[in-house]
């Protein structure tokens, strides 16, 4: 009788129910895997295949083994781009992070906190501004003749500087643009970190007679370590993948004088799309990924070690 009722409710066999119940969850999660497979995994695997082949326009692929990788490792231009990205990274960390932390501390102060909404909007706006717009505006600011910056310096008797053409200034200019572009977002990250620090810690330190500097160095900075780690990773990824600004600032060459603005991703683009060296470009991508992976692992290891020392 019971069996008959079930048949009435479900006009399919229990075997089919078992099958469908087994597959339904997979069906639900499949969109992610399908999209990831097509747009994530496939390009990664195809890139790996490309990196061990020599391919020109419409020509049959030719297996070259590790030749492309060996060429990347011995290519001065590639290492120049890595050097530029490392310089940009160090500069970004050294300039943007202190500024961002300072801004976050100001925003966290009770006087400024009243207008926090206004300030956070102001700080976030550069981050959502189009890279192209930023590039064009800063290209005007940094022009040698008629540029705003040189006009301002002229007031103090400073001779015009070729900001965008002089290799000495290429990366500092990029750092300055990155400062304007990213300081707000990083300040907001720090602000989120600051707001997670329990106020009781500061109260207790104050009662114990800790000065403001002592409270900052012994409470604020150590407790900001997790968010700092996150910002560091973001900075590494951002520095090695910067693309739009050098392109616009160099009138579309992407390289600057004597490759002074050449970034690894720009090199990858130039090799792949301008010179049609697809295999070599893919190898550049893989070597770059491995370098970034190594840097990230080192950093993770260092942070983990310190956390262990502190017993956290």
């Amino acid at each position, binding site marked *: 009788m019971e069996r008959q009722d079930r048949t009435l409710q479900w006009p399919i066999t229990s075997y089919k129910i078992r099958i469908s119940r087994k597959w339904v969850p997979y069906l639900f999660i499949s969109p992610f895997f399908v999209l990831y497979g097509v747009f994530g995994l496939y390009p990664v695997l195809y890139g790996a295949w490309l990196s061990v082949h020599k391919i020109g326009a419409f020509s049959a692929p030719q297996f070259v083994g590790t030749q492309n990788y060996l060429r990347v490792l011995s290519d001065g231009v590639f290492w120049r781009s890595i050097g530029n990205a490392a310089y940009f990274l160090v500069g970004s960390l050294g300039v943007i992070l202190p500024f961002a932390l300072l801004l976050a501390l100001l925003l966290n102060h009770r006087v400024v906190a009243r207008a926090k909404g206004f300030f956070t909007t102001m700080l976030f706006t550069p981050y959502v501004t189009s890279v192209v717009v930023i590039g064009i505006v800063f290209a005007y600011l940094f022009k040698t*003749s008629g540029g705003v910056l040189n006009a301002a310096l002229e007031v103090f008797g400073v001779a015009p500087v070729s900001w965008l*053409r002089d290799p000495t200034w290429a990366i500092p200019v990029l750092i300055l643009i990155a400062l304007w572009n990213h300081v707000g977002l990083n300040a907001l990250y720090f602000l989120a970190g600051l707001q997670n620090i329990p106020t009781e810690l500061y109260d207790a330190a104050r009662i114990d007679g800790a000065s403001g500097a002592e409270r900052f160095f012994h409470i604020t900075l150590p407790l900001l370590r997790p968010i700092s780690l996150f910002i560091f990773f973001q900075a590494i990824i951002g520095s090695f993948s910067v693309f739009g600004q050098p392109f616009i600032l160099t*009138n579309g*060459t992407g390289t600057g004088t004597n490759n002074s603005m050449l970034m690894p991703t720009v090199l990858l683009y130039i090799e792949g799309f301008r010179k049609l060296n697809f295999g070599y470009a893919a190898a550049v991508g893989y070597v770059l990924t491995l370098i970034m992976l190594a840097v990230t692992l080192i950093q993770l290891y260092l942070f983990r070690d310190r956390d262990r020392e502190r017993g956290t």
Partner: protein
Amino acid sequence: MKRCRVLKVTAILLGPLLLGATLAQSLTLWTFAPLHATFFEEVATQMSERYPDAEINIQQIPFDTLYDRLATLALAGGRGAPDLVDVEQGPFNRFVGDEMMFEPLDSYLQASNHEDSIVRGKLDLFSWDGQIYGLEHALTPVFLYYRADVFEEHGIETPIETWGDFYEIGMRLQEQDVALTYSPLISSTRMAMADVLLQQRGEPTFDAEGSPNIRTNDYAEVHAMLQRWLDDGIAVPVETTTDFTGFLNQERYVSFIGADWTGGQLRQQVPDQEGLWRIMPLPVFEEGQPRTGTWGGTGLTMLKTSRDKEFAWEFMELAQLTVSNAIRRFELISLYPPLKAALDEPALNEPVSYFGGQSVGAVVADIADEIPSQNPSRARTLYAEAVDAHFFDFTKGDLSAEQFRDAVADELDRLISREQ
């Protein structure tokens, strides 16, 4: 039985559609220039009159994006590729090599008796390894554009015969705070300008085989001259691509070296200066040299993967090899046609109101026989890199013109060997 009936009905309904899809001609064309797109739309309308069922799709794609897409298609073996593509001569050099993605046009030109229809120099620009891959839009002769009102005001006689005279006029104008011309600090524009002057001296940057021809005295002297214009103040520096038109608007210089297509840019960018500009043949270094050069150029190419090559060729022939469309393009874009049969057409010699009623055609006819060829070379992209490496030091004065020449030549040799 039921399934069989469904199949029959589907076949009856979809049959004509599928048949139509197979038989109707279709063609997709990519171009980067808005005015070229307008011109091709008109040609598409003419084709539609011949083939009412044909589907012709003209797509305008931004310059860099078009070549990025073309590169991607090259990698993908041409799947989803258009039939015809407008290729600018610079990027064309990227795509030349052992395996060409373009269809050779020699047999089509031969079959339609058009082997000698286009000026040879302009066919050379889109040739590789003895085969022709593109049909040029323009003759791209280079003129000296000048502000007739300013020249008249300062009593400057035209045409200016030599570059020496040009320099002296520049120095005279400079005393009255007028810059005669501009000199680019964008390395790619500077080398294109230098290339024109080197063509005049019979020593182009790349020889007929596409090999670099840099270690010459001419190369150093031409670059020294362009730099002297800047250093001595007869030229204003142009640092960005927007400076060119920006400075025109501000009237910061009163003459410049430019190809015929620059005339179209002038009309678009500074329409309010209509009637003030004129053109003249280029001054020369020495008597007997060509009073012009060639700068830039865009060719219509057919991809190897085109689904209907005959139909695509018919479109190409109509657009690039008929006198009526050569005239129409001249009217629309101010491009003087490279089609020999059109050169004597009265319509091309009409007065142009933007140039104060001057006949551009008459100036072109005067210098037509002197227009040199521009040789394609796979190494042009690398040459740009080589120049870029030392251009700043040269313009700053840290390198002499001779040192700059040697540094560029050495760098180019290094880059070529790196590619191999």
